[in-house]
């Protein structure tokens, strides 16, 4: 089957890595959605900000650790500001209002970046050595592919432990099931939301580091397209629960990587068409998401 679609092991590995990165983004979006019922359209711009931090650091020849620290500081500060200035005042508003507000934030951040760094963008070079291939059993695989898969697996495992084994994790799970009841039972809303936004920021920073290795040229629309694809993936998986959302993100990243490798070059420009046509088809068959066994989603 692999041969028939002109897919080799390298494509398969790259697709897995893309799936892993998208899975992290999916969890980042899903965590905030769980406690706030808010689809954070500005998530891609958080990643973009982190990527610019890396690019600026590499331009000034900062050591690698300092660049990564700067990336985390920028993304986390921005996440907390976003939470305090936008999410909190809008809590309890209709989903449409919240979505358009995050749309506005996304647009705003994108244009601030455009204003500050120009249309040509900057290049983040500090991690490009990860693009070199290693030979595994006769197959050449880029180091970043392995790093991405390992980092994603470790992050997801850590997050899983946090959600399952700690008190705050329990609170977050309770809040995403039924926020009002959770509050009645003593879960502190601001704290749970703050932690969710923070965790989602940590994931955004990790994704920023890994995406800049794959695409070192950072422009103001960095990660915008990825975010749209991941949003589709999250909805495909099932927005409400973390594991289906993660799987959805992984699935769409994997599919996107495979399609990109399998389509002949004359057709590769139509990749979004194929991808979103598939998304729409799946949504029509399973509106509650791929991994929803109850099929409880509202249909009209």
């Amino acid at each position, binding site marked *: 089957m692999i041969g028939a679609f002109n897919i080799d092991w390298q494509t398969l590995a790259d697709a897995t890595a893309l799936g892993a990165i998208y899975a992290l983004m999916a969890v980042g979006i899903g965590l905030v959605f769980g406690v706030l019922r808010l*689809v954070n359209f500005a998530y891609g711009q958080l990643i973009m900000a982190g990527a610019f931090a890396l690019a600026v650091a590499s331009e000034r020849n900062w050591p690698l650790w300092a660049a990564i620290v700067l990336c985390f500081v920028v993304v986390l500060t921005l996440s907390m500001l976003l939470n305090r200035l*936008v999410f909190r*005042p*809008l809590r309890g*508003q*209709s*989903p*449409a*209002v919240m*979505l*358009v*507000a995050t*749309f*506005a*934030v*996304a*647009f*705003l951040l994108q*244009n*601030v970046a*455009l*204003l500050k760094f120009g249309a040509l963008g900057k290049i983040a070079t500090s991690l490009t050595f990860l693009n070199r291939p290693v030979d595994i059993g006769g197959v050449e695989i880029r180091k970043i592919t392995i790093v991405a898969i390992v980092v994603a697996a470790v992050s997801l495992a850590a997050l899983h432990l946090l959600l399952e084994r700690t008190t705050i994790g329990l609170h977050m799970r309770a809040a995403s099931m039924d926020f009002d009841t959770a509050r009645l039972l003593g879960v502190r809303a601001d704290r749970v939301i703050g932690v969710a936004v923070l965790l989602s920021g940590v994931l955004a920073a990790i994704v920023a580091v890994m995406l800049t290795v794959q695409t070192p040229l950072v422009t103001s629309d960095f990660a*915008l397209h990825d975010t*749209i694809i991941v*949003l*589709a993936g999250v*909805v495909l998986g099932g*927005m409400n629960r973390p594991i289906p959302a993660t799987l959805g993100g992984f699935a769409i990243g994997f599919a996107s990587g495979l399609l990109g490798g399998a389509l002949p070059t004359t057709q590769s*420009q*139509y990749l*979004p*068409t194929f*991808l*979103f*046509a598939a*998304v*729409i088809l799946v*949504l*029509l068959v399973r*509106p*509650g998401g791929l991994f929803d066994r109850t099929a409880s*989603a*509202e*249909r*009209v």
Partner: protein
Amino acid sequence: MRRLIGLQELAGPAVLVVVTGLLGLTVSASTQTYFIDSLVNVSIVVALFVFIGNSGVLSFGHISFVAAGAWTAGVLSVPVAEKAAIMPDLVHFLRETTVGNIPSLALAALVGGLCAMLVALPLMRLSGLAAGIATLGVLEITHNLLQYENRIGPGLNTFSSVPETTGLRQAAIGALLVIGAAYAYGRSRFGRLLRATRDDAPAARAVGVSVYRQRLVAFGLSGLLAGFAGGLYIHLLPLQAGGLYLDLTFITLAMLVIGGANSLWGAVVGALAVSALDSVLAEAESGLSVFGRTIDLHAGTRVVVEGVLMALVLIVRPSGLTGGREFRLPRLRQRATTLDPGPAGSA
């Protein structure tokens, strides 16, 4: 009396459009472009309102129908003699056909409406987030195809040589037509049934309203109006139809939400207010003198200021500038409430 109150809801937006048009006559030709542009924005936002406002379902896909309309009017309006130069790979049928201004607008509306119906037949079964993401997928696909498919258009190039017929008059008449259609739909049985499903879906279902069918009708009409607005747009300036994408989606949705998504009045006010702000800031970027002082903003500041203002309006006044209410003259409303307290009080 009741009919008079109803007519106010049409008259308010219409008067606003006419006033904008008349104001546009008094300014220089370069400033006039801003007025024409805002009137086209009114058409697009009212088209969005017909579906989003009446159904309460968010759609990210409507700019696809604007793009489809712009493409139709564009590809059919380029003179035959110039088609080969601009669009060398065009399929035979499109290469041989050129139509005039009015037919091109009518066809733009038709194509917009047909595309919307085609999309709506399967997608209107969905709701909530699934519907939002599916319509976003439609936008992605339209954008992708218009961008790269050279057999149907100029691809990454703009539709140059399309006659620039959308002046102040055409833009104003177009906006009035769209507002008229939106009003008529809103007052019709269909509009009322759809709003019933928006306000209380279980109750509407209980009295036998098919949510699916009502949304289908609104989506089709809304796509038709969006296609028409796209036709107006391409006749205003040479566009690249594939370029009608996320930016326009964002700005028009923001106009609708800032004005107040639940009313026609809100759609028109939002479109004009945001367009006015946009024009002033665009002028300020190239140096604007106010009371003898020159304001000269850094290029690109405009979008930043707009982003901040939009977020602010949403936080301070989430139901929009108009609060989602229809236009009412203050005195008429008072008298109406004493005569007939029932329907007049409701928003």
